[in-house]
């Protein structure tokens, strides 16, 4: 039995310890916000927060998350910070097909919570583990920059 905190609620599972967190979230908890892109830790669309740190849920065996606090986009979307990021992504035109966005948003949150006023270079570094094949990244960088400016004091 593995117990952990998922989007603020204590949960438990009897799934085997080497099942990937992405599969547990999507199949057992029906949290389909995190996507599986590459399954190799290269694309970042499965990103979730583990004890406030952004990590790839496709690389995490669930046995390793005993007691951890996991936040997925499905839980994060109820926050004020998400609302602002959502507005800024929309305003900057940062969403096209949308497949990378759950991961991009979690990477944005992880960046801004550690560094509320990042430079452009720091933004690019912050989302460097997240692939987007539509936007060419510039609009996403603009969106995060906008959120940092509008969200002064929020992070």
């Amino acid at each position, binding site marked *: 039995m593995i117990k952990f905190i998922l989007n603020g609620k204590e949960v438990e599972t009897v799934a085997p*310890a080497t*099942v990937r967190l992405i599969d547990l979230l999507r199949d057992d908890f029906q949290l389909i916000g995190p996507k599986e892109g590459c399954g190799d830790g290269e694309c970042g669309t499965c990103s979730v927060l583990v004890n406030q740190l952004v990590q*790839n849920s*496709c690389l995490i065996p669930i046995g390793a998350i*005993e007691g951890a606090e996991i936040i997925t986009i499905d839980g994060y979307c109820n926050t004020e910070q998400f609302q602002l990021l959502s507005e800024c992504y929309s305003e900057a035109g940062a969403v096209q097909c949308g497949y990378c966005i759950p991961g991009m948003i979690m990477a944005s949150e992880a960046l801004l919570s550690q560094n509320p006023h990042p430079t452009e270079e720091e933004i690019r570094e912050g989302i460097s583990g997240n692939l987007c094949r539509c936007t060419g990244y510039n609009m996403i960088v603009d969106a995060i920059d906008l959120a940092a400016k509008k969200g002064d004091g929020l992070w």
Partner: protein
Amino acid sequence: MVTKAIASYRMKSLDETLSQLSKEDCQLIAGGTDLMVQRKSPRGAPGRFDKPVVFIDHLKELKQIYRVNQDIHIGACCTYSEMMEHHLIPNILKKAMKEIAAPAIRNRGTIGGNICNASPAGDTLPLLYIFNAKIRLRSAKGERAAEIRDFIQGPRKVDRLKDELVTEIILPEVPEVQPYFVFEKVANRRADAITKISFAGSMRWDEGRIQDARLAFGAVGPTIVRAADIEQKLVGQAFPLNDKVIDGIVAEFESLLKPIDDHRSTGVYRKTVALNLLRHFLEVRA
């Protein structure tokens, strides 16, 4: 979800973990960033592990970073991020580690895991070879230390017995004044890509003479390539190095490096880039 019974352990302490390792042959899992890719199953199924797994990345005993005299001890399960945020880790190493992976992997992958995975393209390995890192191992029976160049024996092959666990990486005699240091990683993408070729070099000079030079190449052979005899030829040379000396050193490595073709790159490309990076490093003027 398919449930296949394979035992898994997550002990409360290092001693309990070592005791488990002394009882049966187990697969250790630290961050899992390599293993979970290598052992990936179809969606939803447990990873393809053929022996009991033991999780170790929560063990506090493996997460300490401390200094003893001039030696820096790094717990094997420190993540890249934890190292990059720690005041005892030399700045040259922190800066180099920024070139590795991306935040999400750096928050999960561990230094001990990168060593024990023993990939020829392992990103921290050229850096650790430059620092002459030592690997500290423990079992229920006792403790020992090994030089990293002896510990890593080949692709995916390390000198670790089944009941042993890597507890620490030691960077011995780290000088207060950091040397000139370069780390280059060449890959398809800046972040999250497996290295085609990597190079780390450090050099110290004083009053116009080279005091110390270390050169390490990654992904150009089964293990990291360092050559003490070639490095020694640089010691005592006038700094900046003249073209003749540089040509001589590059020529030595030209006959030493024998990279292979694989799906990531070709031997010719790897060798050309490796030698160019070496030359660029040796041409430093100040």
